[in-house]
Structure formats: C-alpha cells, structure tokens
C-alpha cells in the first residue's frame, strides 16, 4: 500500500511536470515565433514514465483482483447452507448423548 501510494504520487508529479514543461515550451515558441509541431522529446519521455507509474499504482493500490470465473475456487459453490430456518431438534442426535456438560457460569 505505502510503496504503491508513493509511486502513484510520483507519477502524478511527473505528469504535472510534463504539463508545465509543455506550457513553457509553447510560451518560448511564441517568443521565437516558430510553429508548434510536437512536444519536445524530454516531455514525451516524462509522459510515458508518468503513465507507467500511475498505471502500476492504480493496479496495485486498491487491492487484489477477484476472480469472475464461475468455477474458480472463490466462486465455486461446494455446499449449500443448512436450512437453519427449518432446523428441527427432533433428530437422531436425541438418542446419542453428546457428552457435553455445558454450564453457564
């Protein structure tokens, strides 16, 4: 959690730095009166790095993935719950003493 969160923050910081550099680059282009053809290479590298870090953090921080397959161990129903609303006490256990000397103190 801690590591993932720090990485996520780092990714967001890198992304915002890329945005800031792009704005500065555009301002510089206006001064030198050149056409904007594309962002400089260091901004592109920053964008890719920020994207990677943010994606990694988003996948790890919220937790584990749950299986959606119906036959995976987490989803496969192997037993129905006992029908406790219809539980009857008049069963064969009556003939066999449980040997529990339970007492509430």
């Amino acid at each position: 959690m801690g590591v993932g969160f720090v990485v996520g923050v780092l990714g967001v910081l890198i992304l915002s730095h890329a945005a800031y550099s792009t704005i500065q680059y555009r301002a510089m282009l206006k001064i030198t009166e050149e056409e904007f053809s594309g962002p400089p290479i260091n901004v592109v590298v920053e964008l890719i790095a920020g994207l990677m870090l943010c994606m990694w953090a988003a996948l790890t921080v919220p937790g584990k993935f749950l299986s959606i397959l119906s036959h995976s161990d987490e989803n496969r129903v192997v037993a129905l719950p006992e029908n406790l609303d219809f539980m009857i006490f008049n069963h064969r256990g009556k003939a066999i003493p449980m040997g529990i000397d339970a007492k509430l103190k």
Partner: protein
Amino acid sequence: MVSKTEEEQVNRLESQVENGGGGAWEYLCLVRKLKLRRSDKVLKFGLSILNDPKKRSALGPEEWTLYEEVAVAAMDCQCPDVAKEFTKVLQKKFPGSKRVGRLEAMLLEAKGSWAEAEKAYMSLLEDNPLDQIVHKRRAAMAKAQGNIPLAIESLNKYLEIFMADQDAWRELAEIYVSLQMYKQAAFCYEELILSQPTIPLFHLSYADVLYTLGGLENLQTAKKYYASTIDLTGGKNTRALFGICLCTAAIGQLTKGRNKEDKENSQLQSLSAVALEKDYKQRNQSKHSLLTATLKSLKLS
C-alpha cells in the same frame, strides 16, 4: 452459499480452535455468516468465550448475538437446560423482544412440548401476521412431529405469499424428494434455478430428480442440466460427471435401433469418462479399478 475457499477456511479455523490455537470468535462469526450447522462446536467454543468475563466484555454488543447463536446450538445438542439459561439472560436484557420470544418458543419445541410452542407461535403471529421466520418455524414443527402433509400444506401456503423465499422452496423440494413425489420436487427446483441460475448444486439436484423420473425426454433434459453443472463447476463435480455417463447409457438403451443423436451421446460419454478417470487417478488411486469396472459395465449395456 459456501464456496470452496470458504469451506477450506472454516475447516482450518475449526482445527485451529480445536487445538487451542485461538480464533474462536472468528470461527463463530464465519459459521454464522455461512449458516453452517456445527452445533456441538459452536456450543463448546461459544461457552468458552461466554464463561470468560474478559473475552465476553471485549465483544461489546456482539455478545448478545453470540448468546442467541449458542442458545440455538444448545437446543440442537439436546441441552435444553443450558439453552434456558441463555434465553433467560437475553430475556432480562431485552424484555418484550419478538426475537427472544421466538427463541423461547423454539426452546419449547426442543423440549417437545408442541402444544405450548404452537401457542407461543400463534401469539407471536397475532402481533405480526407476516413474520416469515415464525411461519417457517411452524412448518418445521409440523415436520418435527412427523406430520409431513401438514408441513407441505403450510409451506405451500407460505410460498403463495413469499414466493421469493429460496430456503422455503428448497425445504419443500427436499420434503417432496423424501416422499418420492418427484414431479412436484422438479417444479420446486425449477423455481430455485430461476431465482439463482449460477448455483451448480440446484442444477445438479434438478438433473437428479429428472433422471429418477425417467423417460426419454426427462433423461435428455437431465443430461443437459448435468452438462450445465459441469460448465458451472469447471468439471470438478464428480456427481455430475457420473450423471452424464448414466444418462447417456440410459438414453442409448431407450433409443436402441433409432440412433439419431448417437454420435453426440457417445462423445459426451467418453469425454466425461476420461474426465472421471483423470480425477480418480489424481485424487483416489485405490478406487480407480472400481471406476473402470463401472464404466465398462455402462458401456456394455
């Protein structure tokens, strides 16, 4: 519904508590959540918590839920005296509560004084005529007394009002199966499959009922439902695999001579036989010879 992971977790926790490893409260919570009926263990572990004032006060308001759980477990273990003590504690804490009233009526049931229990339930119903649990208890009480027709009648009446109650449908289906009234049981299982189509066990029971009914059409439907069980469990349900083998064998016997679907049938059969053999080899080598003999006899017939 108890999934494979949850089942393993319960069993692990149970042996852990049994060997003095702690975790009794987690175990009791899990049993309550999964609605398991392990009354002896619940009584034992629950008492050990309730008899320890320190552990008991650490639970906070959950303490009273535990009292109720253990009281029902005590009734199931034929210790009405213990259950009575618990009910008294709850009665003192929540005077005039319906839930405690139900518990007291259940206690009367456990003691076998049916008339008094019936009276108690009727008075509870007067206050709230749509109390589902009390209605269900009355059906269960009829069953406990061996009065199955009355149980069926009251369940049918109950289901006319509360049609979405799966537990009641399941209980009715099981009663019908126990009376060998398979057509009615099949209807109940259809309802269950409709309301919860992803639970393989309902498909399996429905297929079992249809196979028992017999007849070509029913057998073919049963085969389809066994197949859907296999689909939903990823082939890990041995009973469904056996069901396919039996169904195809029975269909083959019925349609001898006019084999329209013979190819599909034999393919299904051999596939499930292969799956069974693989499963047995992996999990139970000693019974493997038995399996081969059974499959051989099915193919010959």
